[in-house]
């Protein structure tokens, strides 16, 4: 009976202030939603990387590969089998069907260990047609749709095959890739016979590679997901600010109730227990709502994320979200955890509250003022840490730690700075009213500081990310102009057609530039090796970051190479270093060029040297230089004379557009998260102002009694809110610029391998400042309306009240 009465007394508070309840639930569910939404996107992507990494048991089984990373003769496979090695050959490579590029994985179903089995061949006929010409390509449904109508071997659909990939018999792969009797690697079965000849005696050119649990995709995209996680975390922290202030307020306002309950015989334990139960209930409700909302956010983000991952890394992530049960647990868990963290201080106070303690908000506020000193020290410490990490640390995690330390330091420093500013203003003030204005603002600061911190974080993130994205866009667009110098890019369908195209084009255009490339391992990582023609196009345009004086002559001579920034930064190379290319070809590094948007290492060598060292290199792609006005006519002629499909002739503008689209998509996710974070900060501000307006009656009533109209009181309140919002915005600027610097100079370098120059965009800041003032205005609107409509009797009541 007593429990029920106690619970009723506690809950009645929410009935009287439904808005506060709404704030609490909203804050909590928003925080949970952003967090779990981002986690969902990450989980979805990771699951698909794991699938890719698990292709043919690569994550579980050892592999034998050639030391130089190249394909090798299947005789090596036979020799190993006959020496007692249970290995199974795989030949991988990209094949073109029409204009569609498909990654072929050729397997030997007879020797493939059960652990590496990818697709089921469930009948005699399946196996016979798979192994005998023309073979069967096992593909996903989407890939089958892309290939329909093209000249391919018969297709079979399996859901276990990654997108744009086909599993074929190794003999078919050798045929389709033009690599007769070649294999790219051998899978080592987990169970080997009792005796076998040592590997070195049979196949000295092969090395044994341990299983790769992570896979290339997971490694490449790590940084991208860390980025998302950091944003999710930021949003969650901002959301917790709301929860913290809502809970703090609710407890503060219920002090009289607590006191009464305790006086009536409730033990501190029982009271805390009841409050805890109440909070847990809210956390559960908000957690579930948050997960549902998070699902919505994730479904919204996923198509863009999937497009980015495909465009940037070639990773195949389904654009449709699959619901995982683990989310519900994680989402609700984080909501409960967040609530408990936010409520810990308040609960502790209730637990230790003296039985007859008076309700004393002012004293609490004073205590907060003294806490400012500690806060200032903590902020200084964090800034010190930021500087130290930025100076001595390295790695992506350190990059994000720098961000976290800087943002937290800035958030903690904000109330300190504002307090100092306000007391300075107070000293400058003339006349009692302005003196009161500044003094009262200071008095309000502790109550508002949390939401101001949230606002600061959101604004700084906005400034920082905005600056980073805009700097990137500016650099990227300029770089595209340099890099895509040729007016038209042509892909032939066969080597024979390529040869005819060259002859046909030569008299008609200014230059035909081969874009021939091969792939292989360079310094232990997958790399692209491009051949570059000795032509002014490159000398004049190619975006070199560093180079030796006669770089292009050296490249053309065949004894030097230029490498992309990613390879240069990742491996700490410098000009003049010797680089070993697949097959043992030694070259010197003569230049470094920027290569945005490419996750892989890239090397450029003279085209003659390329075809000399790699005679099998594909000679299908060309850049064509000509008067831009003649491009449409040339396209038409090519279509007529060669029946070349339009997809095989792409003009510069189209490529630029595609690149920019990928770029925009990459940052679309960031932008959405940014807006959401700002929204959460707005809600936090609103919650705080709502709270304060309720508490402020005792402060405002005497002024009203002294003759100020309610109208001028409202104006004063509004002015205060605006002053604080503008000050916060001003404080956010340097923090945001710092953030942008960390993103550009540390995080991007670690994550993508390139460093970008920073550009500043004051116009954007002005717009953001306007937005934040507007947000503050909206946040202040309801509390002010309430003040404006306050009945004089309510103001009078203050004097009749216990206080």
């Amino acid at each position: 009976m007593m429990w029920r009465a106690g619970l009723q007394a506690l809950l009645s508070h929410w009935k009287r202030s439904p808005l506060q309840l709404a704030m609490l639930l909203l804050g909590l569910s928003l925080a949970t939603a952003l967090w779990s939404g981002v986690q969902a996107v990450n989980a979805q992507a990771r699951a698909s990387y794991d699938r890719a990494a698990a292709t043919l048991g690569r994550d579980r089984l050892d592999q034998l590969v050639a030391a130089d990373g190249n394909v090798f003769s299947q005789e090596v496979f036979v020799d190993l089998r006959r020496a007692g090695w249970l290995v199974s050959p795989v030949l991988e490579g990209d094949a073109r069907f029409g204009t569609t590029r498909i990654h072929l994985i050729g397997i030997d179903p007879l020797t493939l260990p059960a652990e590496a089995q990818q697709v089921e061949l469930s009948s005699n006929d399946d196996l016979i047609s798979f192994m005998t010409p023309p073979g069967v390509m096992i593909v996903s449904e989407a890939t089958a749709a892309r290939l329909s109508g093209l000249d391919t071997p018969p297709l079979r659909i399996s859901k276990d095959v990654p997108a744009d990939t086909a599993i074929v018999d190794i003999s078919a792969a050798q045929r389709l890739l033009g690599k007769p009797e070649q294999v790219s690697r051998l899978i080592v079965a987990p169970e080997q016979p009792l005796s076998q000849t040592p590997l070195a005696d049979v196949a000295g050119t092969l090395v044994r590679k341990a299983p790769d649990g992570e896979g290339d995709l997971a490694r490449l995209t790590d940084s991208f997901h860390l980025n998302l996680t950091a944003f999710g975390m930021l949003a969650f922290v901002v959301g917790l600010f709301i929860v913290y202030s809502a809970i703090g307020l609710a407890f503060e306002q219920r002090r009289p109730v607590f006191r009464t309950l305790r006086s009536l015989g409730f033990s501190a334990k029982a009271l805390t227990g009841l409050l805890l139960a109440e909070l847990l209930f809210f956390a559960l409700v908000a957690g579930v709502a948050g997960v549902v909302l998070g699902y919505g956010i994730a479904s919204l983000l996923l198509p863009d994320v999937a497009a980015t991952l495909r465009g940037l890394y070639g990773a195949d992530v389904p654009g449709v979200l699959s619901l995982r049960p683990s989310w519900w647990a994680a989402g609700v868990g984080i909501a409960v955890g967040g609530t408990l963290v936010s409520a810990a201080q308040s609960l502790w106070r209730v637990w230790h509250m003296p039985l007859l303690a008076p309700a004393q908000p002012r004293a609490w506020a004073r205590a907060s003022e003294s806490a400012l000193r500690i806060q200032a020290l903590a902020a200084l410490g964090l800034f010190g840490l930021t500087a130290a990490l930025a100076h001595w640390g390295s790695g992506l995690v350190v990059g994000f730690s720098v961000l976290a330390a800087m943002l937290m330091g800035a958030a903690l420093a904000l109330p300190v700075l504002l307090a100092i500013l306000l007391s300075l203003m107070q000293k400058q003030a003339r006349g009692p009213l302005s003196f009161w204005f500044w003094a009262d603002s200071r008095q309000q600061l502790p109550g508002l500081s949390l939401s101001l911190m949230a606002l600061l974080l959101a604004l700084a993130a906005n400034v920082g990310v905005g600056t980073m994205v805009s700097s990137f866009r500016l650099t990227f667009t300029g770089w595209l102009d340099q890099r895509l110098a040729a007016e038209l890019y042509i892909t032939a369908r066969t080597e024979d057609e390529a040869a005819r195209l060259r002859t046909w084009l030569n008299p008609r255009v200014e230059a035909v530039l081969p874009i021939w490339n091969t792939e292989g391992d360079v310094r232990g990582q997958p790399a692209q090796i491009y051949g570059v023609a000795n032509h002014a196009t490159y000398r004049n345009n190619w975006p070199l970051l560093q180079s030796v004086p006669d770089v292009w002559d050296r490249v053309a001579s065949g004894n030097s190479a230029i490498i992309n920034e990613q390879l240069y930064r990742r491996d700490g190379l410098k000009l003049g270093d010797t680089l070993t290319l697949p097959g043992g070809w030694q070259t010197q590094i003569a230049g470094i060029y920027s290569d945005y948007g490419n996750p892989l290492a890239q090397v450029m060598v003279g085209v003659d040297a390329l075809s000399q060292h790699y005679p099998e290199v594909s000679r299908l792609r060309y850049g064509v230089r000509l008067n831009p006005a003649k491009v449409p006519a040339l396209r038409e002629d090519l279509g007529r004379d060669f029946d070349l499909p339009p997809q095989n002739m792409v003009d510069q503008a189209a490529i630029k557009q595609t690149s920019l689209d990928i770029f925009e998509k990459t940052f679309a996710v960031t932008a959405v998260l940014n807006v959401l974070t700002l929204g959460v900060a707005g809600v936090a501000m609103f919650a705080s102002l709502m709270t304060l307006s309720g508490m402020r009656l005792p402060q405002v009533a005497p002024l009203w009694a002294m003759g100020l109209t309610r109208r001028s009181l409202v104006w004063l309140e509004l002015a205060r809110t605006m002053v604080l919002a503008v000050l916060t915005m001003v404080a956010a600027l340097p923090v945001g610029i710092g953030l942008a610097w960390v993103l550009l100079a540390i995080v991007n370098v670690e994550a993508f391998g390139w460093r970008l120059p920073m550009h500043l965009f004051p116009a954007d800041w002005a717009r953001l400042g306007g937005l934040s003032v507007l947000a503050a205005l909206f946040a202040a609107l309801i509390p002010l309306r309430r003040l404006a409509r306050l009945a004089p009797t309510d103001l009078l009541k203050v004097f009749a009240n216990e206080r």
Partner: protein
Amino acid sequence: MNVRRILLSLVLMLYAPVAMAQGFAGLGTAAEGFAVPKPGTVFQFPADHGAHPDYRIEWWYLTANLTGSDGKPYGVQWTLFRSALKPGETDPQIWMGHAALTAQVQHFVAERLARGGIGQAGVSTGVKTQPFLAWIDDWAMTSTVTDNTADTLSKLSLSASGKDFRYDLKLDAKGPIVLQGQGGYSVKSAAGQASNYYSQPFYTVEGTLTLPQGPVSVTGQAWLDREWSSQPLAENQTGWDWFSLHMDSGEKLMGFRLRDGGEGYTSATWIAADGTPTPLPPGALKVTPLNTAKVGERTIPVEWRVDVPSRNFSITTKALNTQSWMATSFPYWEGPINFTGSHSGRGYLEMTGYR
């Protein structure tokens, strides 16, 4: 893995319970374009020791009854199967190896698969320095004959290995090659399905077995079966019980029963100690299960009475190891046996199609 199951069913198509569409279509249909055994064919050796890619399936099937230096009995099986995926093309052919080593309480099995044409497995004959070689991976049956006039299979070395066993044996034939059925034409059903079939049952053996507990040197006798064909079993045939028996008297008996739910179809060849074969008419051989053993979930007859009344032959067989289960992708029972009764000796028993 399903692929293996399919392959085995391909290889065993002739005798396995695979319901084939053509059923009893038999001889005239030329088995979907593959060559078909014909009565009256005279084998040409050593060429016929090699592969017959025109036929759908073929095997080199060797079993050995051995005694170790530790006094214990052992059994060894070495089998290479060939199966053609399509008629008319020499490749792709699929090769499959089964190896087993049986002791009283242990039974080790290994299985290998390979495609033909790349050198991973095959059978080569007629090379001067290497007159006969059948191999898959590191397993090999190699002719060690140096004398031009001798049959190339008369001296062999044999090896195979698995995760936990290995064997290396030398074989020496003390008798001639034996043609089964009518001059090598062995009928498999009342409807006339048949195979080409000959044996070399007169090997003496010596060599080494490597077991988890260490090497054991062994001696004993071995039996090689060579068979090739293209036609499947009749639709109602569900499996078989196959005996190869070395009698202490030096005589041999090959006999099998193809089960069809009723009487079954039995066939046998009585081989005199000098190698002279006498094909027995269908039904002359009677086999009766006496006792069963549980092998996993299956109930397998491991004790048999084998009667050939016309030869006053009546024996009871006992398995050396009742758990001689070939846990390959298409599992069957195959292991060494002893027999007593009117005659005594040892041999091998193979049983398929028990559930």
